Structure formats: C-alpha cells, structure tokens
C-alpha cells in the first residue's frame, strides 16, 4: 500500500464533517472492520469504530514526560489529539501470534486516523518483519489486509518530535487515503487504487483553494509548534560511540526497567518465541509473544547474563533505536511519536537523554525552535558504522530456515564425554540438516523446556552429533535422553566458520571447555582436505583433566600428527603429567609463525578476549581471527531481537565473526 506520487490538485477533495459517517460506512461496506481512536480508561485508545459516535469528538489530549490527560474541547473535531498509548502494531503485530510460514488469511481491516509518524512506524516494521532474509508470515498477512486512512496532525502534543525524525507531520507516503481535519470537514486525498476506489464511491466535491490553504497552514503550524527538539545529524554514530557514557548509569537510577516504553513504542518488535511440542517430543510449533529488552532475562543464557544491569538494558534500547537500527534495517528505529516519553512512569524524556548522552557538536546545537525542514537522519558515513569498515555480514549467506520448521530426529546413541557433558548421535534424512556447515547450530525443542541453541559437533552422512553440557533444566534434560528418544530440531542456523579463509594458510585453533564442540566440524573439514591447509595447531584448555572433551580423538590426532594438539588444564592433581595453566599460554609466536596464519577461537568471552590479545601480539590481523559468540537466542533467524550485539544479530549475522567485524563489541561490558 505504498502511495503513488501526490495527487493533482483536481483530485484533492473535501468531505464535509456531517458526512464522516459515510466514509466509515464505505470502509465497512468494503468488508473491513474499522479500527480507530475512541475514548476508554481516560485515554484515547484504538479500538473498533462503527460510527462517528465512537470517535473522540469533543476531546482534547495533553501529554508531558510521565503524563497524559484528556480534556473537553468546545469544537467538534474528531482527530485533534495526536497519539495515545495504543499503536497499530496491536493489529499488524498482535501481542501473541504463531510463528509459521503459512498463516490463514487475516480479517480485512481499515485503520482510521493513522498519523504520519505511525505510517513511518508501519513502514519501519515492514522492513524489520518482512524485509528478509526471514519473513514473519503472520505480520505480512495482517499488514496486507489493512487499509490505511491517515490523518494529518492539526495539533501536536508536547511530547511529539516527528519533525526531528523526518516522519511528519505531513503524510506523504504509505497511505491509501489521507485526511486533513478543518473545522467544517476534511481535505481528502487518495494515495492508492484501493483508497481511490473508496473515495470515488463517496462522490465528493473538489476541495476549494481556501480549504487547501487552510490544510497547508494547519500542517505548517503543527511543524512550527514541534520545532526540532532532537537534531539528528550524526546522531546514530554519536550514540554508538557513547557506549561508555556515565549518563547511562544516571538514567538507570530513574529507570524502573518496567518496559512501558517498549510496549507503547510502535516499532519495537522484540518477542519471546515459545515452542510447544507434543508429549512424545514431536510436532513442535512456535508462538511469539511481545517481549522487551528491559526484562531481566532478555539477554540471559546458561552461564550468565549479558545485560544484567538496568543501565545495560536502557543503553541497548536507546542505542538500538537511534544507532544500530541503521545497521540492521537501514533506518532509524524511532519515528518521533513521543509515546515512550508520555507513558514512562518516571517521565524519562528520550529527547533530553539523547542530547545528554550524545550531544551534537556545539555549533549544531539548536536552541530555538526551527521551522527549517528536519535534518537528514542518515548516519554519518565517516564512523564505525560505515559498512566498509568491516566485512558486511551479508558476505556469507544468511540462513532462511523459518522458525516453525522443526524436524523430528531420533537419538541413535549417546556418549558421556565428561561428568556434565553428553554427545547425542541423531539420525535424520533431512537434507537441510545434513548440509549443516561447520560452526552452525540448531534449536532443540523438548516438551515443557525452553528451546536452547546447540552447536553441531559433527555432521555425518545420515545425521548429526550434538554435544551438550548440562547447564540448566533444558540442557540437563537433553543430557539424560536415551537411545530411541525423539526430539525436534530446527536448523541449521547461523553463519559458520569460514573454512575457505584458511586455505593455503597455517591454522591456529584455540578453544576451551565445551568450546571444542562447535570447532570439531571445522577440524573434520580440515582433515577431509588436509593438503589444502598449512600447519594446523589446536590449543585446548579445560578446567581439569576430567573436563576434557573427545580425549580419545584428540590423542589419536596428536599421535597421527596431521594436527598438532596441545592441551592444558586450569587445575590438576598429581597424577596429571600434562600442562597446567591457562590456554593462552599455549600460544606463542612460534605457533603463529610461518605462512600467514588464520585463527579460530571458541570459549568463554573473557578467554576469547585474552586469546585475541595474544594472537594480536603474534601478528595475526583481526580480519583473520574468527570467534563464535554465545547469546540468548529464541527465533534463530533475526526476528525476535534477543541476540543483538551492537550492529549484529548474533543468530543471523553470526555466531561466527571476525574480530575486525566485532570491533570493540567483544570488550564493552553489558552490550
């Protein structure tokens, strides 16, 4: 429903106020349920509208940071109230929906009273949820079923800043019908064939010059009233660069982490993906529910929480909205509707926080309201956000596996590797699973448990091996499965190890603990074509000798000499004659000398950071050091938002990254 060019003047028409019901009737006659503004619970909220009587005629709204009030007005205007707490995503992206590739046709809707900022929000969610590589089918169907009747804002709330974000108040695209409210009626434009068909049925007169001028004056006054409270030029780069600002901690002292801002935000899209499966473990289905990056568990994984503090979570939200959203989706994630300001219980005003965290250079500071067009919100290309600064994630094809595509697999054998770690050999003939590449992972669903991402530790001709450490209830349950058990897996997901980057080079593989599991398919790939690679060294660290994985295999490799294997443990008893000490001590200049080396690293992030330092000392450039990251994952295809790390969705763009791609992201606490 993208609008064509602005209609010629002859097609600008006028709907007398008394005829507004005719428009609502025409929408209903088109088979559509009309959703629009109505008064409930002391606010203007969106709900079903059957006639003008349901609209908030005679009501005005006021807002301020942490406040929103309705009041009576003397005229009969129906839309002079800007935005309330609900947004249209409640219908396009309802709080609970299946994640499936085939969705039944949705009910035909007409959205009546969509503001310019809200059209921008719909277009923003279009890019997120149907811009690929994975597409949210439920959203696509619902969105396509909705006709957009826009209303240009004749008034602005104190919390509005669409002018700064370049989204309003003028309605210029993304509408089927646009209305501008005057005292005696509405200036009407059609923006699509579907809109034109409905307007045509109303048989309206052309708008006269006075009406057109009055409409234009209305918009000009609204724009002047808002001014330009958030100069956005260079903002994306500035806020990304402000990761260590002390202001985050100060905001966190006020922020309740209640998630109100994300729930009223018309673009926030993060969800929790729940998996339901039959009691026998088969037939898993996924359902998404609204989630928020402010919730404590949002970035938690077995072993820790990547954003344990409110300051981490507030920074994630604001930095994503105004900064890294550009990297993910090519636009700002904020449309300037101001809902998060009005509905914040403690009145945190993101306009003020943006100016405090990432102030513009002094000369650009706008101290008085400006009537100039809003500055471009495009990010400053001279910054770390510049895609040329590091290889783009799309250099490797992203997985297109959809969230509901679970495959039932059978456990054909189990093997206890250590006291808490088990390998499950799974049989499957699913071609996608069998095409799993080194470093990819699968989501594993079992009834009544969370769905963890598990690295594939070997690919066979007739199945996969998963090596799982019992870290929480779900993984513990998996380690207790026996031969013959059935479970549902989805994948392979993510971008794996770039095997080709090692061709013709010496290879250093550094890993610790369970981190050896996702590297074993890489070693298998090297061994399958051993002559294509130079010297290969594996440095493996474990907590104790008993915690080492794949001991027999490593011993065999060490004996046969095709890969040089060195192991060390953090602690050992007197019976251990091998090395004791951290794994980084296994790496020295000698290990990295010879032909230009490439390194592959997997382990806890702190261990990988220490390893990165040693590899840098050895002269391996960050473009050739690859690490794999762990994050909280639910959808596995970049739709649910959980695994964000700065510019990246770890599930979709990773989990394997070069250090050059990550930049400082590996070392910023709470990112």
């Amino acid at each position, binding site marked *: 429903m993208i609008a064509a060019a602005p209609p010629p003047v002859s097609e600008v028409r006028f709907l007398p106020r008394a005829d507004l019901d005719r428009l609502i009737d025409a929408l209903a006659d088109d088979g559509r349920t009309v959703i629009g503004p109505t008064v409930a619970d002391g606010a203007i909220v969106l709900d079903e509208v059957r006639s003008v009587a349901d609209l908030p005629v005679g009501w005005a709204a006021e807002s301020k940071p942490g406040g929103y009030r309705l009041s009576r007005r003397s005229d009969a205007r129906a839309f002079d109230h800007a935005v309330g707490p609900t947004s249209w995503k409640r219908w396009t992206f309802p709080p609970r929906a299946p994640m499936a590739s085939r969705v039944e046709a949705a009910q035909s809707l007409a959205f009546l009273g969509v503001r310019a900022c809200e059209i921008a929000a719909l277009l923003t969610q279009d890019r997120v949820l149907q811009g690929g590589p994975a597409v949210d089918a439920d959203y696509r169907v619902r969105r396509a079923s909705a006709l957009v009747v826009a209303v240009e804002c004749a008034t602005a709330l104190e919390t509005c800043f669409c002018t700064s974000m370049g989204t309003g108040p003028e309605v210029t695209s993304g509408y089927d019908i646009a209305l501008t409210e005057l005292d005696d009626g509405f200036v009407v434009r059609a923006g699509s064939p579907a809109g034109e068909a409905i307007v045509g049925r109303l048989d309206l007169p052309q708008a006269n010059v006075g009406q057109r001028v009055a409409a234009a004056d209305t918009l000009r006054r609204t724009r002047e009233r808002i001014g330009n409270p958030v100069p956005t030029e260079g903002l994306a780069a500035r806020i990304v660069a402000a990761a260590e600002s002390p202001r985050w901690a100060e905001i966190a002292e006020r922020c309740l982490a209640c998630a109100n801002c994300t729930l009223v935000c018309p673009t926030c899209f993060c969800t929790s993906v729940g998996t339901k499966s039959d009691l026998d473990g088969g037939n898993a289905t996924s359902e998404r529910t609204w989630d928020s990056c402010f919730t404590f568990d949002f970035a*938690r994984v077995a072993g820790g929480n990547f954003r344990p503090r409110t300051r981490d979570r507030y920074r994630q939200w604001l930095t994503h909205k105004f900064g890294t959203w550009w990297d993910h989706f090519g636009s700002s994630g904020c449309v300037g509707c101001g809902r998060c300001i009005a509905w914040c219980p403690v009145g945190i005003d993101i306009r003020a926080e943006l100016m405090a965290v990432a102030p513009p250079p002094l000369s650009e500071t706008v101290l008085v309201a400006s009537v100039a067009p809003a500055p471009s919100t495009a990010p400053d290309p001279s910054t770390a956000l510049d895609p040329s600064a590091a290889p783009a994630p799309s250099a490797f094809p992203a997985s297109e596996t959809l969230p509901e595509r679970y495959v039932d697999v059978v456990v054909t054998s189990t093997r206890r590797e250590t006291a808490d770690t088990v390998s499950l050999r799974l049989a499957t003939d699913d071609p996608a699973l069998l095409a799993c590449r080194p470093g990819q992972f699968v989501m594993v669903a079992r009834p009544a448990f969370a769905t963890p991402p598990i690295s594939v530790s070997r690919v066979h001709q007739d199945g996969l091996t998963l090596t799982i450490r019992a870290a929480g*209830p*779900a993984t513990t349950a998996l380690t207790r499965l026996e031969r013959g058990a059935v479970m549902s897996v989805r994948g392979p997901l993510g971008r794996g190890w770039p095997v080709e980057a090692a061709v013709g080079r010496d290879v250093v593989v550094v890993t610790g*603990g369970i981190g050896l599991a996702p590297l074993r398919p890489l070693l298998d790939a090297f061994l399958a074509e051993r002559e294509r690679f130079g010297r290969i060294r594996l440095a493996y660290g474990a*907590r104790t000798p008993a915690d080492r994985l794949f001991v027999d295999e490593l011993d065999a490799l060490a004996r046969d000499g095709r890969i040089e294997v060195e192991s060390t443990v953090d*602690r050992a008893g007197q019976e251990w004659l091998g090395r004791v000490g*951290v794994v980084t001590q296994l790496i020295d200049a000698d290990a990295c000398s010879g032909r230009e080396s490439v390194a592959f690293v997997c382990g806890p992030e702190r*261990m990988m950071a220490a390893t990165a330092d040693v590899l840098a000392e050895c002269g391996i450039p960050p473009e050739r050091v690859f690490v794999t990251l762990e994050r909280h994952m639910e959808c596995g295809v970049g739709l649910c938002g959980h695994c964000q790390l700065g510019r990246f969705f770890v599930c979709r763009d990773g989990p394997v990254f070069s250090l050059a791609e990550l930049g400082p992201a590996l070392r910023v606490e709470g990112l």
Partner: protein
Amino acid sequence: MAPDPAALADAGLAATWFGATLPPDVRERLAMLARRERYGPGDVLLREGEPADDLGIVLVGRIALRLRVPERGSVTILTVEPGDLVGWSAIVPPHRSTSSAIALVPSEVLTFAGEPLRAALDADPVLAAAVYPRVLRAVARRLDATRLQLLDLFTAPGAEPW
C-alpha cells in the same frame, strides 16, 4: 677433552628467549655462573617455603609448581615449560620458594646458583640491567596467566534457564 661447561651453558642460554637477545658479553658472563642440571620424573627442584637456592631456565621437559592445600594434598597450579623460569625467588628477597617444583618428565634446566648470581648482579650494573627486566617480564606473564586462571572460566554455571 670434555666440552667446556661454560660454553655449553652459553649455547643453551642463547637458545632461550631469555638469552637470545642478551648482549654477547653479558651472556658470556651469565653463562660462567650456569650449569646444566638433569632431572628425572618426581625429582624435586624446590620445596615450598624453603630457601630458593637456584634460578633456572627450563631447556627441556616440564616442571610442576605445586602448593600444599589442607585436605586436598598437593595441587599443581602451573607447569613450567621450556623457556620458562623456575625459582625466581632466588634473586628476589626473602629468597624463599613460593611453591614446590617437581619434574614431571625427564627435564633439563640451565641453573644459576643463587648466591654467586646475587653477588654478580650486585657488583655488575650492566648485568643487572640486562637480567632484571627479563625476570620481571617472566614474572608478569605468569601473574597475568594466574589471574585468568583465577577466573575459573570453564567452570560449570549454576542453575540457569537452559
């Protein structure tokens, strides 16, 4: 005629990171103080808390550094590998060994007797200026590694959602 022990020591020293970049005259003076010692598995080089008589540079093998922990016995906290120092307490007061050192496999150590080495370092500022920074580097590297080890990075987490 048997090979000159000092020449042998000098050659051994030159092959290590510690000795490779020493000025040749300094290295020769140091080699005069050195002897090559061989140890078999289980041989004790140092005992925790006792006087540290010798500074050594491991040439071959593996030496375990162990601490006694009540109810856990003797715990290996680090192994010293070729190129690493053993017994740096010999030149750092109070010259008492901070751990026990036991050879795990047949090992060869270039050994400097503590007393003459200390006397030479006191008397020869050029020698001291060459030796101390290298010892400091080795000790700092060990401290850094010990900190990482202290983090116990590979330990299993507690109860978690997955």
